[in-house]
């Protein structure tokens, strides 16, 4: 910041008042926007040629250079399913505990918060190493969809807890007095008051977490593996979409055409998740304001 300040200090007084400064900010924004569209257009342009219904429903052949990505989609979905089945209950329980039961400055709540901060900052490759020892080696799951899903579960746990905690805090303002006035037990409060009305916001947080999980590559390389066959069970190794892109670009000469297709598919998924998060959050805010009125 001092750097920025010094640059601005060099600008003579009169220039500061002119449009010079404002055009500097516009230029920055335009540059960022252009870079973004350069990237997006190259992926969309080449990706459209590869993307088709056959691409989605076919098996890959010739190490993925031709054919489709059906087994890869299935593996990805299975990994995400395992990941969400493990994290959701844990995340909601932890969030409910720290939002409702423990005062914010209680040592237990501080320890959990610090742990979450650390978990959120750990690089994904370290999660990959951890998953490799614990799930693949120690628990004997080997390179499998199950190991991959569990590793991702550890990784998205902090995001899910933080978003759900915010959700619970924002409802508790509206409902806490109400349910306490009725002397409802915490059990009833959680399952009959909070969960039903928090669904949109919890879902938004959940989709955000899943988005992160879908985007993840490094944590999966040594846990779910590379195999691009159709998985028979969750104990089989399965290749996720992101690993497919990585493998096609780095290890398979001439695989970039299908990598473009897969990348475009991932961007489409991203656009869908982003807009659904926006939509759900808007609905949630709308609900909250409606309650407060």
């Amino acid at each position, binding site marked *: 910041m001092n750097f920025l300040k010094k640059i601005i200090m060099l600008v003579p007084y009169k220039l*500061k008042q002119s449009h010079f400064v404002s055009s500097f900010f516009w230029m*920055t924004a335009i*540059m960022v926007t252009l870079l973004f569209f350069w990237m997006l257009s190259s992926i969309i342009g080449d990706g459209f040629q590869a993307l088709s219904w056959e691409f989605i429903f076919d098996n890959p052949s010739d190490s993925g250079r031709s054919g489709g990505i059906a087994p890869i989609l299935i593996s990805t979905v299975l990994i995400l399913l395992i990941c969400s089945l493990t994290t959701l209950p844990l995340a909601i329980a932890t969030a409910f*505990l720290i939002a409702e039961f423990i005062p914010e400055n209680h040592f237990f709540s501080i*320890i959990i918060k610090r742990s979450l901060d650390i978990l959120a900052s750990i*690089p994904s490759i*370290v999660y990959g190493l951890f998953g490799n020892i614990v799930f693949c080696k120690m628990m004997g799951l080997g390179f499998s969809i199950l190991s991959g899903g569990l590793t991702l579960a550890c990784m998205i746990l902090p995001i899910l807890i933080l978003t759900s905690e915010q959700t619970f805090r924002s409802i508790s303002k509206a409902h806490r007095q109400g349910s306490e006035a009725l002397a409802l037990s915490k059990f009833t409060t959680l399952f009959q008051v909070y969960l039903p009305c928090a669904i949109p916001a919890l879902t938004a947080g959940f989709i955000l977490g899943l988005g992160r999980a879908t985007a993840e590559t490094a944590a999966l390389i040594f846990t779910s593996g590379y195999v691009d066959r159709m998985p028979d069970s969750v104990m089989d190794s399965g290749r996720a979409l*992101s690993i497919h892109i990585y493998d096609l670009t780095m290890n398979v000469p001439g695989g970039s055409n299908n990598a473009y297709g897969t*990348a475009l598919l991932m961007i489409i998924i991203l656009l869908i998740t982003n807009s659904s998060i926006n939509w759900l959050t808007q609905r949630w805010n709308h609900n909250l304001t409606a309650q407060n009125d």
Partner: protein
Amino acid sequence: MTLLRHNILSKSVRDQVLVFVLIISSLTTIALVCFIFLFLILESLPALSANEFSQWLSDPSWHPTEGQYNLYPIMIGTLAIAGGSVIITTPIGIASAIFLHYYAPTPVAIFFRRIIELLAGIPSVIYGFWGLVVLVPVIIQIAPPGQSVLAGIIVLSMMTLPIITLATETALICVPHSTIYGGYALGLSKISVITKIILPQAKPGIVSGVFLQTGRAIGETMVVLMVCGNVIQIPDSILDPARTLTANIALEMAYATDIHRSSLFVTGLMLLLSISCLTVINEFFKKNHHARTL
């Protein structure tokens, strides 16, 4: 835990069971952190005990199969790439946030924010892919071999830009309006109000964004793995290839055994410790600032 029990008014059995279950599940979070540290340390021990500490910096080079474990060039590569991207992104990110908040007309701001959010969501492997198939060929035109520190810095900067922009923007929103009006009322120009009154107040938020972004840049694997060339050497210029700690793990984990494998866990542990340090320093800064303003 005794304190917890006092906070619960209701004595219903169901509630007690609920609290028990909740506490058990939140303990998972704490346990997870402990386990991650524990297992990385355990797996690193063989390599740490087999090698002298100085060997990690003074061996002739990194040839784990021949018993040479010099991490120095890889650490330099990591610092060069992460540092370069932080230096580029910080001013651009802060400028983008200022643009978003104080210069852009509303429709432009909405549009620009959408772009930043999309940039934040794009998977790192797609950044790496784009860098390899689009950006690297452009750099080859200027100076071969193309896969280089420069390519890594550019792609990593695009990837971490949203972090600093969104952090700065959040900090800008929290600056009290009364001081902004006070600044204008004294006849300060817009840019002076921004640099002298708003930015100092937003500083803690911005600093914490920079820390966050540094952590991401150091810990990022896919981008650097795909565009930096992965040659183990101290890069002479930004056009030379280099290898980072994360890429090293990703490349060698597949075939590493015994001490080699264990030495990869040592690098993992180094990453973990350095990023935890960043998190702790960040917390310290926040607390320190909080104490000063109150």
